[in-house]
């Protein structure tokens, strides 16, 4: 009990400031306890010695050195900014060079492929020269050829295969087709065009019509014709399939 009391008193003594008056209970204990009294004396002496250390002054050139240090740091910060900005510029220039090079390489790689493609597509066209359609005369038909929705071929023959290929490959919708290759073409006189007729929609491709031409010297030109929509058209009963559009 007494030991606990001494610990408590010493803790309180520790927390007191120097020259601070202690409480009456603490003073009573110190009068009766030699150990705590000795502790207080030594503690006070130690604290006086430690407190006598005082303040050590900074050197006279402290401010000057500090200003120089701050100035040096700010200038180094500026130079660091310059260093990083130069690096950023170099990286940006490098990226630009790479991007330009990539575009050029891509162009070089793609150009021959286009020419070959055009030539390949043009091959059947080159072997089938365009023939003018003569109204009223039977038109020789290609046996392998099918007419879409029974529409007479009024375009030049050179462009037709290209359109058929593209329609067949790109348009996934079912085609209304009639094969007249085994029948003899009829001659229309133009007067039979008027009369009762049935109307049905023509399924035409929505893809634009493209023609690629090669002049034989490696120069390819592509002509694109926008999609022409006819909507619903009237067809004459027993009409000649190859009659001109005017008679519809």
């Amino acid at each position, binding site marked *: 009990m007494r030991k606990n009391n001494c610990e408590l008193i010493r*803790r309180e003594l*520790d*927390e007191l*400031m*120097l020259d*601070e008056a202690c409480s009456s209970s603490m003073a009573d204990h110190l009068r009766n306890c030699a150990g705590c009294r000795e502790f207080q004396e*030594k*503690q006070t*002496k*130690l*604290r006086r*010695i*430690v*407190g*006598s*250390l*005082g*303040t*050590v*002054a*900074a*050197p006279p050139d*402290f*401010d000057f*050195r*500090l200003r120089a*240090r*701050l100035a040096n*740091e700010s200038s180094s910060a500026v130079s660091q900014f310059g260093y990083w900005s130069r690096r950023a510029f170099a990286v940006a220039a490098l990226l630009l060079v790479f991007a330009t090079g990539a575009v050029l390489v891509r162009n070089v790689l793609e150009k021959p492929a286009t020419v070959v493609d055009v030539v390949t597509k043009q091959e059947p066209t080159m072997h089938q020269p365009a023939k003018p359609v003569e109204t009223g005369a039977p038109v020789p038909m290609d046996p392998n050829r099918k007419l879409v929705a029974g529409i007479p071929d009024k375009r030049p023959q050179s462009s037709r295969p290209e359109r058929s290929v593209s329609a067949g490959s790109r348009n996934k919708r079912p085609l209304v087709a009639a094969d007249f290759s085994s029948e003899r073409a009829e001659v229309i006189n133009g007067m039979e065009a008027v009369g009762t007729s049935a109307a049905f929609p023509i399924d035409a491709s929505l893809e634009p019509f493209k023609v690629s031409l090669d002049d034989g010297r490696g120069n390819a030109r592509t002509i694109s014709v926008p999609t022409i929509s006819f909507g619903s058209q009237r067809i004459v009963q027993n009409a000649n399939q190859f009659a001109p559009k005017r008679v519809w």
Partner: protein
Amino acid sequence: MNTLTTIDELGFAPALQQDVLEDTTSDHALLEATRTGDQDAFAELVSRYRNQITSFIYRMTNDYDGAVDLAQETFVRVYRAADRYQRSYAFSTYIYRIATNLAISELRKRKRRKLVSLTGFFQQTDGGEAQELNPPDARPLQDSELVDTERRNAVQRAIATLPEKYRAPLILRDVDGRSYDEIAKILETSEGTVKSRISRARGFLREKMRAYL
């Protein structure tokens, strides 16, 4: 700070706290001015705290040149962080915290480099701080001033051997005379921990300074 606590005890706390508040506000105002580029305001701050900070770091590291460097680093950090400074604490608490952290970092660096002070002769076997061999001079002293000087040197060396966690609160309390509350804020710990550490630090010192007490 001793005075503040004393007057606190006497019941004059409000008036003195007002003075402290004005002083603190003045420090804040100087830092605000520093933030706007006023170099004179920063110079005034430096002139107010350079001796305190240098002295505190010197007591912590027992190396004057190093302490001056670290004190300058403290002010450089204050200057650089002026934009981020928050007024939730007194400026003195803020700058002492920076100085304490720098001093503790320096002590840890030294420990890693296994630098032993020239005054330290023994190293604890349990990996603790260096122990000072500090025998009292048995010769008769000529002058009481010499006695005091010898004591101060001895206690400085003894403080330098304390573990850093005991050293900082002891210096802040017994050398700089700061309150427990402020020490707790500077060291970012509780007041109870501060009291406990100071008590243990005094116990260590009593053992080391037995010959002088």
